[in-house]
């Protein structure tokens, strides 16, 4: 049967036996889990036993792109990668735009499921005609950029698309990325280490097929409508002109920067040295992912100075916060230099900076000495940071300890994890929850992938307003004009509960659930979660999109229920792997060290109030209020009753084998 939107095929590769199969994607699964992260979640849950070693051959690595990917529906370029995460030991997932997702579909696959382990380095070559495993011995050890150049030479083509790991992934650094081309990445939760543990260096795709949709005229009409919605969004101009760097302003102003490993939220010369206005120095060329009218990435060429001539795509806000604030690197030229090192090594910038910042703070506090590191390590020392990135990715010297991530490395070095700013073992990105309490920061605790800011976001968030937690922790202020939230695509009854137009506030708990479910849908059908689309698209428009694209007669409720189902299955997965309520906790610093300066001076996170919010969140989700275990009623509603009844909640023993050189 022909499916529209989907290719209808999952490519299954067993690296141990070399066997390659094509599995039919059942329409029932597609409708329930949509695609991308949704179907990845189902496949990961079904294809791995509990307590599987994330770096062992039994873990599966999944690539997935939803039904809209490959079409011209605005922003529909996203693909998702999933596996059990080697850094959290829980659900691992990460999303990326650019070309890989659409190319995979043009080659004929919605998903790729990779299991087993090859006995020598290999790469997976996928074209319309053939899928094969090829020798990658000569690529092993090469950094990502060299790997891609060598593959393009081998294929005599600039039109192949490459997902590759660098030395980090090969050496199973727990926070390795898979790079999507040279400048984009599936960055978080260590998916590159899983790929490296399988001895899989790269996936090369060249697709010459296409994506068909059910109702062409409607689809074209809707695409135009959505494009207009996105381009009319109040965020469009700012994000389009400055990219994500537009957000450097507000967080600097609130004093919510993660400066020096979250020791302070204020950097005096932030705007002049690392603000969005500085980006004009590099180029005026915006770069879009396929089908996106926004073009939030920018081409950067360093014009002069020690890094003159260095080229890169995307001066982004997250690396600017991470390298510029967490590690205190003073100027954007040097931030671009560090970013290029992260890309080449195939290392996640957030976890990487979280780990290096932990080390820098240990050195600052004289908890470790120069001899242990091999050199003195001051904040903002670009040369030493680049050196550490290389040492980590090759497990050299102290790099072998840092390769395990901030939490494990902190414990190994000082016997406690006081300076590891993580939730569930994953390094927290970018903003300080003490100074801006919001859907975003509460989401660090509820995210199924640990300390992470990309699987939730308040669609009516307004970064012009600081969000200082008041007596009532549940409220986040917003300041949009009335017509804006009235237009928001959310059932009216729920909107009344979530948004208080008089007080201009959002209920964080209820919005958390809504946005987690909605973003699960986005990451499944393949559209971008950045503000211009997050604000413009909701379940009603998505239902219409899916009708025109796939031909399903779906309503808004079914769309949101799919998102809820996906999130709940991730929760069941994490419970199965041993996550418990006690794991939803911030590092001690946020509860006990008041911010020392700036607009949020004196602020801490109130542990008791956060615990009450977790109670409320669990209840809002239809989970047991005390321990966050989904109720039988909720699971029956979502069709997950069997997954719940199969769940063994006796504490599992997680394998935590150290893949370090000393252990090998």
């Amino acid at each position, binding site marked *: 049967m022909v499916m529209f939107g989907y290719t209808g095929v999952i490519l299954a590769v067993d690296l141990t036996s070399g066997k390659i199969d094509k599995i039919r994607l059942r329409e029932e699964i597609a409708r329930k889990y949509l695609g991308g992260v949704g179907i990845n979640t189902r496949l990961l849950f079904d294809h791995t036993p509990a307590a599987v070693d994330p770096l062992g051959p039994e873990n599966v690595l999944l690539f997935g792109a939803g039904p809209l990917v*490959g*079409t*011209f529906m*605005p922003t529909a370029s996203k693909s998702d990668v999933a596996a059990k995460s080697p850094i959290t030991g829980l659900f691992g997932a990460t999303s990326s735009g650019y070309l890989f997702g*659409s190319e995979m579909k*043009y080659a004929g696959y919605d998903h790729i499921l990779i299991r087993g382990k090859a006995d020598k380095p290999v790469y997976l070559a996928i074209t319309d005609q053939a899928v094969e495993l090829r020798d990658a011995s000569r690529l092993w050890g090469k950094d990502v950029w060299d790997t891609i150049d060598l593959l393009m030479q081998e294929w005599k083509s600039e039109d192949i698309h490459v997902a590759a790991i660098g030395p980090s992934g090969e050496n199973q650094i727990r926070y390795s990325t898979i790079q999507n081309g040279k400048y984009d990445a599936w960055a978080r939760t260590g998916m590159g280490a899983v790929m490296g543990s399988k001895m899989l260096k790269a996936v090369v795709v060249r697709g*010459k*097929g*296409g*994506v*068909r*949709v059910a109702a*062409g005229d409607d689809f*074209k009409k809707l*695409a*135009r409508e959505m*494009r207009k919605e996105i*381009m009319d969004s109040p965020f469009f101009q700012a994000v389009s002109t400055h990219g994500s760097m537009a957000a450097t302003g507000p967080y600097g102003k609130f004093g919510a920067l993660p400066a020096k490993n979250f020791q302070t939220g204020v950097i005096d010369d932030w705007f002049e040295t690392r603000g969005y206005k500085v980006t004009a120095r590099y*180029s005026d*060329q*915006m*770069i*879009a*992912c*396929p*089908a*996106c*009218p926004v*073009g939030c990435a920018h*081409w950067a*060429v360093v014009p002069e100075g020690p890094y003159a001539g260095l*080229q890169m795509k995307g001066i982004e806000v997250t690396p600017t916060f991470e390298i510029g604030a967490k590690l205190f690197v003073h100027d954007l030229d040097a931030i671009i230099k560090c970013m290029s090192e992260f890309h080449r090594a195939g290392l996640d910038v957030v976890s990487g900076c979280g780990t290096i910042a932990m080390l820098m703070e240990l050195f600052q506090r004289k908890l470790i000495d120069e001899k242990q590191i091999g050199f003195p390590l001051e904040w903002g020392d670009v040369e030493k940071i680049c050196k550490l990135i290389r040492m980590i990715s090759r497990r050299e010297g102290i790099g072998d300890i840092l390769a395990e991530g901030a939490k494990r490395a902190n414990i190994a070095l000082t016997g406690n994890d006081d300076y590891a700013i993580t939730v569930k073992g994953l390094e927290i990105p970018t903003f300080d929850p003490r100074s801006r309490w919001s859907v975003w920061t509460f989401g660090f605790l509820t995210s199924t992938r640990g300390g992470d800011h990309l699987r939730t976001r308040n669609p009516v968030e307004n970064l012009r307003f600081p969000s200082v937690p008041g007596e009532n922790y549940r409220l986040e202020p917003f300041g949009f004009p009335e017509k804006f939230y009235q237009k928001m695509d959310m059932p009216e009854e729920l909107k009344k509960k979530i948004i208080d137009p008089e007080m201009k506030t959002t209920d964080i708990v209820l919005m958390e659930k809504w946005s987690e479910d909605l973003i699960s849908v986005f990451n499944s059908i393949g559209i971008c979660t950045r503000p211009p689309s997050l604000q413009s698209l909701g379940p009603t428009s998505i239902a219409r999109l899916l009708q025109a694209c796939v031909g399903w007669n779906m309503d808004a409720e079914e769309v949101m229920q799919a998102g809820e189902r996906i999130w709940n299955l991730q929760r069941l997965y994490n419970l199965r792997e041993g996550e418990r309520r006690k794991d939803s906790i911030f590092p001690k610093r946020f509860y006990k060290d008041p911010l020392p300066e700036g607009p949020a001076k004196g602020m801490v996170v109130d542990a008791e109030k956060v615990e009450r919010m977790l109670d409320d969140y669990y209840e809002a989700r239809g989970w047991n209020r005390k321990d966050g275990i989904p109720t039988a009623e909720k699971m029956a509603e979502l069709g997950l009753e069997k997954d719940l009844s199969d769940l063994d909640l006796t504490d599992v023993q997680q394998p935590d084998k150290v893949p370090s050189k000393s252990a090998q």
Partner: protein
Amino acid sequence: MQYFILADPEKCIGCRTCALACSFEHEEAFIPVLSRITPLWMEEAGRFVPFTCQQCSEPLCAEACPQRAIIVDAQTGAKIVDDALCIGCHSCFYACPFGIPAVHPSKHRMFKCNLCDGSPQCVEECPREALSLCESDEAALKKRREAVKKLMRLMEKIE
């Protein structure tokens, strides 16, 4: 009329909507390799160039065609291929200095931009107005105007 598609690389953000819209119009599916327009990334210049048929006044493709299969559309001036005559021999491909004509992998006939009978889908769907359907004289005026704007900005700086 003598129309062609004018591309402005300074406005292009490389979103490939043009190529997707083109293949959707001509192939009823999103198949970028069968698109008649290709946005190319020129890394040295740091720019995207959406590249398609220039609808030459003296089309070398037509001259090279042994079948005389490439004819001029009276309404738009587009150089179009008569599928009944085309034998898929690649002569046009060799003759074209821009690499525009290609042979369709399943229809086995040359395919290239035909200006969509006067309403090119790439132009209509481009979100950045980087493409326009122009007559040559108008295009020249447009380009001169843009150039003068740049010049004036430069003059302001000098003053």
